[in-house]
């Protein structure tokens, strides 16, 4: 099994391309490269999403916005991905774009004082697309269940090219976003995380095997 790792907030800020106040993971309490991650985020009444609330509202109005919960989960997944590929790819000038969610069920809510605990598992990799699944907990309550979330890894230059007012949108063909990342095939990736060979060993493996 891969070894467990813990990441403090300063490491998280270094890993994620996001900046304050959009860094929605406080700590990583478990990390198995290529396999799974547990990230936590404390919810406090002093965050931006509670800024404009007028006085006198009932407690139910303080439920943590689902959009931010989903983003927090997605960022936890992004950390798993970014840390996992670090060992065999130097060029990290990538933007991780959240492309789809399927069947994300909300079972409960979170409030100021709660700590979100996102348990994320890597489900599959298809080219530059990362599939994850998992759950979000508050203590012993499962408040969200995520059947599938997909993120695409895109080179930053490609994204900037489309950043014009009349931008044509993201390329639809995968060829347009061809990257120089050398990914292990998904099978090899998942197998690797179970056996946990050293990065050097897996580079040799990659070169000698055909996709």
């Amino acid at each position: 099994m891969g070894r467990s790792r813990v990441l403090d907030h300063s490491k998280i800020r270094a890993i994620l391309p996001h900046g304050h106040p959009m860094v929605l993971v406080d700590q990583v309490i478990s990390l198995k490269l290529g396999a799974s991650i547990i990230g936590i985020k404390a919810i406090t009444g002093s965050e931006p999403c509670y800024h404009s609330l007028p006085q006198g509202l009932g407690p139910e109005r303080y439920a943590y916005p689902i959009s931010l919960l989903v983003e927090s989960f997605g960022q936890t997944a992004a950390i798993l991905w970014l840390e996992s590929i670090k060992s065999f790819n130097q060029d990290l000038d990538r933007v991780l774009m959240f492309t789809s969610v399927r069947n994300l069920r909300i079972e409960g809510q979170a409030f100021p004082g709660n700590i979100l605990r996102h348990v994320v598992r890597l489900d599959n990799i298809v080219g530059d697309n990362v599939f994850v699944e998992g759950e979000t907990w508050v203590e012993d309550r499962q408040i969200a269940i995520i059947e599938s979330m997909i993120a695409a890894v895109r080179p930053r230059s490609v994204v900037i090219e489309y950043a014009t007012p009349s931008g044509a949108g993201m390329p639809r063909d995968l060829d347009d976003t061809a990257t120089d990342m050398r990914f292990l095939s998904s099978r090899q990736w998942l197998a690797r995380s179970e056996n946990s060979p050293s990065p050097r060993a897996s580079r040799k493996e990659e070169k000698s095997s055909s996709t």
Partner: protein
Amino acid sequence: MIASVGREDMEDIIVNDSLRFAAPFRCVEHIRIVNCEDGLTLHATKVIDPTDPYLSGHFPDLTIFPGVFIIESLCQTVTLALGELEGLLPQIATLRSVRFLAPLFPGNRMTMRATIGPLSVKKTFEVDAQCQRNDGVMVARLKVKFRYGEIARA
């Protein structure tokens, strides 16, 4: 708080900044509610403003409107248009399918068209939404189940 101009089958809502529920920021500026034989449709717009909270961090050197805030936009639109049922606000129950197809950048105008399904006996309803950019590119498609329900507390 909300300016409302009513007509028999159409109502316009101009949303100002003081939302009465926790939200990253105002993710919808104008809502048109159209009620006709086929059902209820909401048309919502928002111009992406890079000075909105959170955006300075997404990302520090390139501002892209986070996809999750499109979900937020739908949630606010539904909440502001439909309002309370027995004192409870509508909540997202399930994001059945959410697909982000193209990015939104500062200055883009996002237009969302959401079809609201009938209220079930369990006080849930389905929403089918499409989100377009001002140049006509489809930015997102969302299928969301909402519910009016008791809050499950931690």
